[in-house]
């Protein structure tokens, strides 16, 4: 059930109405049942998988707090093994098998195993793992109710593609639940409208260029084709993913839950390090807290720090997808982070120097996107080669694309340096109403496609 479909609008309206009509104790059951229904609308049988993981992690956490010493560690390992094992099977079994067979039987064609990737598995397993580790570290109280814990994992706004919500964030709202204030409700509506605009007007329009180019880049040689096709994808994936999370944040707010911010105008970053503080923040902070810091972080000298950065980003790349392209994408970012740390240290770039650095960072990040988007390594290498050695070629971005990109840049700058949107959200009621009506009209009149195009991050 895509957020952008009529079906979801009906689902949301019904669940929302019931949520506020039912007495408070019944609401958690309503939210859990509707979340499982939401998941089953994609493929009913995989609800068993998510319930299995919920059950394992729920009891593992209880075991951790009731035991001491090795038993605690055993419970943690059991939980991690279940989560990583199932994630590994569904997501990486074919990848590892193909790699192994390519090494041991080179040249022999490999028939992939028929494994369907369960929707959102990468997101809900990370959410579950963080809960169990936090309980193990003593940073999170164990959740006593199975229903409460199930709702934390399966809550439908974030179930499929995040943001990755930590247990302490979710349960803070859950155990101190209060209906959203009028301001929060309106903010929720703004998030939803913004998300729809990002997805339907911006992302889907840029996807037309990116999809056409990456379907067969060899058919469109030329440097400008390579850069414009890649930049189109870079813009598409930002609007697509941040649009999704905006809708998720907005929907959660309507129910009285506050999800963390996931994007902070990442293409205004002046370094790759800063980019990762602005891009998919809940994933990068997850990787920092549960991998980078667990590996030792920056506590053991420069070389170890660089190695930790690289390992974290390689795993982050692999998290996105089971292919060497994603590993290279992660490694590319890991290398960029390490190089930056070597050159600039940890300091933030300020002043006028930010302008050229922002342009350079945008281009570097876009080179990375080639590996993320291209079908296979040869195609990715072809695109990168075209970027730097191809003939001039022609720009694939249309006038409409360029106008939208400039509009987006203007809005991002206004928000970054003037908090324009935040001020509007706090402005007089007529201004907010005009903004909402304008957003609805824009959605009606400027949606790029009549078809519901799936979100890019659904595949992860």
């Amino acid at each position: 059930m895509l957020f952008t479909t009529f079906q979801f609008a009906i689902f949301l309206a019904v669940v929302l109405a019931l949520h506020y009509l039912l007495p408070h104790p019944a609401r958690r059951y309503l939210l859990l049942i509707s979340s499982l229904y939401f998941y089953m609308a994609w493929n009913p049988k995989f609800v068993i998988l998510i319930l299995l993981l919920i059950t394992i992690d729920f009891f593992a956490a209880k075991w951790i707090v009731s035991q001491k010493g090795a038993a605690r560690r055993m419970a943690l390992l059991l939980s991690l093994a279940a989560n990583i094992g199932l994630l590994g099977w569904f997501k990486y079994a074919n990848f590892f098998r193909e790699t192994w067979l390519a090494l041991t039987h080179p040249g022999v064609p490999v028939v992939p195993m028929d494994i369907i990737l369960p929707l959102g598995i990468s997101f809900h397993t990370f959410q579950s793992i963080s809960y169990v580790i936090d309980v193990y570290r003593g940073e999170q109280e164990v959740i006593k109710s199975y229903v409460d814990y199930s709702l934390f994992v399966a809550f439908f706004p974030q179930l499929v593609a995040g943001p990755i919500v930590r247990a302490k964030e979710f349960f803070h709202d859950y155990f101190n639940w209060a209906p959203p204030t009028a301001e929060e409700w309106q903010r929720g509506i703004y998030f939803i409208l913004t998300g729809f605009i990002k997805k339907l007007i911006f992302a889907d329009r840029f996807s037309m260029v990116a999809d056409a180019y990456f379907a067969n880049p060899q058919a469109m040689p030329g440097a400008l084709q390579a850069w414009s096709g890649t930049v189109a994808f870079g813009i598409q994936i930002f609007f697509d993913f941040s649009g999704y999370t905006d809708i998720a944040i907005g929907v959660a707010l309507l129910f009285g839950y506050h999800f963390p911010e996931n994007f902070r105008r990442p293409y205004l970053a002046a370094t790759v390090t800063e980019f990762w503080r602005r891009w998919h923040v809940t994933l990068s902070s997850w990787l920092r807290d549960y991998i980078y810091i667990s590996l030792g972080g920056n506590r053991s000298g420069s070389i170890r720090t660089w190695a930790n950065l690289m390992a974290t980003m390689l795993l982050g790349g692999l998290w996105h997808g089971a292919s060497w392209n994603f590993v290279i994408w992660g490694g590319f970012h890991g290398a960029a982070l390490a190089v930056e740390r070597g050159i600039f240290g940890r300091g933030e770039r300020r002043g006028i120097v930010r302008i050229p650095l922002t342009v350079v960072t945008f281009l570097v990040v876009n080179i990375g996107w080639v590996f993320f988007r291209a079908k296979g390594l040869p195609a990715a290498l072809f695109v990168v080669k075209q970027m730097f050695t191809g003939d001039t070629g022609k720009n694939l971005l249309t006038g409409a694309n360029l106008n939208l990109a400039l509009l987006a840049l203007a809005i991002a700058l206004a928000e970054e340096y003037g908090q324009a949107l935040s001020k509007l959200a706090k402005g007089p009621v007529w201004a907010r109403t005009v903004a909402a009506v304008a957003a609805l009209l824009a959605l009606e009149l400027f949606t790029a496609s009549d078809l519901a195009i799936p979100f890019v991050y659904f595949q992860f």
Partner: protein
Amino acid sequence: MAAEPLRERDDLQSAVGAMQASELNQLESLIATRRRELAEEAARARTTTPAPVRQPKPRTLRAAVVWSFATIATFYAVDCLAFHSGWYMKYLEPNSSAGQLESHIFWLRHEPVVKQTAVFGDSRIGEGFSARAATKATGDRINFRSMGVAGSTARVWYYLLRDADPDRTRFPTVVFALDRYSDHDGEDQSLRLADLKYVIGRLRLTDCAEFTRSFSDAETRTRVLSGCILRGLVLRNDLHALLEKPRERFKLAKDWRNNGHGYLDGYSGKPEDLAGLTADFQAQTLSFPPGTKDWQQNTARGTLLPGPSPQTGKLREYRRHWLGKIVDYYAGTKTKVVFIEMPRGPLSPQEFTEPAYFIDNVRTRPGVAVLPVDTFHDLERPELFSDGLHLNHSGRPLFSEHLAQKLMELEGLH
């Protein structure tokens, strides 16, 4: 007293010391924002008299929900002003699906009311029927009007007719040109989402339920219903084209409103023909004369050698519903409803075996006439067709005169 702030400072320092880089950045940004706010407040305090402090009224969730509905209502009011008031319909691209329909309605509403025989159909009527030639053939005893709209179907004709003749008195006779009388299933017309684009300016909110139900799959129904309620969803491509060249569009739309009917009336048909076309129906092959274009060949193959298609009775149901509604619309009035079968193609194709259920049932109803199936078979000649479907500039006057003569006979005017 002084120890307290110092302890807080120590706490702050240790808290800051424990922060990660991203948290430090957030903190810096918050500090910068707060500094700006304090500076602005200080500036305001220097220049203005402090306003009395007013506590904002606590706003409840109920108020927010009311605001949400009010916002949706405001949005819909703006949408209705633009797209339901008829304002935008005046500036549609004249050759678009909706533009063709709206042009017919505009001309009818802005011309002097004259009793006319209206001939409805798709592009076969648009290309093959000349109202001027037909009127002349009757010695002006019948005044014809062509209501041919390229790509239209019975569902579209119903909504066009309803607004073209709201009092049911304008047309003494309405003629409906069917490609075949046989209810042979080809394309499933109930699935034609394009119909929404034709009738978008004609649908009332009260039509949405029936119009939506007439589409047979759930996804299409969803799109039809949302388009029926929010016309901008259907008209947005037209709007984008208008925004690209607004001046040209306004000029074109105005010219078409003022002169388009005259242009159509004076149209003489396409010059191309298919003279020399032969068919071997046994071998399912066509031989085209040299120089025949792809578009001519493709339409000829589609008409003369249609592939097998499952016979499910969908066309029968579709016609029973929509042509039935047209017949019902004029039931009990003085208007006569006439059905004709168009010349089927540049050669006489093989007969469909599927019976003409609808035509056979409707021919006995009062006020309905059905011309014999072979009335225009003598026009099925390649030199009279520009392609596989449409009569050309030679076929157009012949068909128009032939139809006029038959309607004269029907009216007893000979």
